[in-house]
């Protein structure tokens, strides 16, 4: 029974509107993308 509860809890953690695990994952990803922001434009002279 406790196995079922754990599974339900973990399912809940990954779904629904509030999802800390998902936010954590995506949050860190956004950070990586913004770190890789395009560099300032260079022109050849």
């Amino acid at each position, binding site marked *: 029974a406790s196995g079922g509860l754990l599974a339900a809890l973990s399912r809940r953690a990954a779904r629904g509107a509030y999802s800390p695990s998902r936010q954590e994952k995506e949050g860190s*990803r956004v950070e990586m993308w913004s770190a*890789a922001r395009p*560099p*300032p*434009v*260079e022109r050849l*002279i």
Partner: protein
Amino acid sequence: LPSEGETLTQWGGETVKIVRIEKAQDIPLGATVRNEMDSVVISRIVRGGAAERSGLLSEGDEILEINSIEIRGKDVNQVFDILADMHGLLTFVLIPSTQSKPPPVKESVVHVKAHFDYDPSDDPYVPCRELGLSFQKGDILHIISQSDPNWWQAYRDGDEDNQPLAGLVPGKSFQQQREAMKQTIEEDKEPEKTGKLWFAKKNKRKRKKLLYNIHRTDDVDNEEILTYEEMALYHQPANRKRPIALIGPTSCGQVELRQRLLNSQPERFAGAVPHTTRSRRDCELSGRDYHFVSRQTFEAELAAAPPSQERLRALLAKDNKNPKPEELRDVIEKAREMEQSCGHLFDAIIVNTDQDKAFNELLRLINKLDTEPQWVPCSWLR
């Protein structure tokens, strides 16, 4: 002391450097500029241009004037247009870069084979569009500067003569990180597909590894993302021919091509004598039919097989007999799979639409080994 062609003087309360560089008509000096607020700053000195040869411009120098035209306050796109119309002796008024210049290091050229296609016109990250160098899987690139680890300066093999200025290609770890991120995002777009669970699981494990790698500077473990492979020229010695290995899906003619090679020039081509652990029969000659060895020796030799023995020549071919459409599809499918997963290991691909043509092409490639050196992975020669 100012070097030749360079004077230091006071200009509006600042110490400026005045340099003179000759610019040919319609040929860029080979420097890039970027805006920093309203300043125009030299961002990059490109190999092979007048700016690099003169040694008078440095990364980080701010351009105040060129031939008395005020540059400060202008957008780099305007500066680009102004310079495109200028030629002759150009006089630059510069605020020298404050960043201490590292002593010039003589960088050695690194030769690599590209394992991915790259189109700079499709890349929002390339710092200078004009300098982006496109290439395709299998192209040899001569990397002449890695001083910017994200954007290497390179020439494509065979292009050096008609393209004096080096181009920009993504640096190895930059490309790996970008690919790793792309894969992560792609996976999130399509969540678990039913019936492909094993595949999804495999990807998940892979992703973890890739994410982990992003934070590492060494790229030893990043072998899953193919970027560049360091290559060296290898001259085939006259008395030690490279083995010709034909790889391809079954029923696309490589067996026939092999037989034709052996028949046409029996003094030149020979099949490899395989090893076996079974005992020799009476009619068989050791060293001609098989190398007869013990199981122990056999296993030892397998383990010791050096990668240089695995030089591969690809033969992906289409059959021109009349097989069933689904068989044909199968062959093409297999060929695609092989090219996808192993294509980077092949030196050349022969499309076998016509046996005579394919044979002549094969022979031409083999003959070339006698006269022209070949690019092989560096590790083979160490």
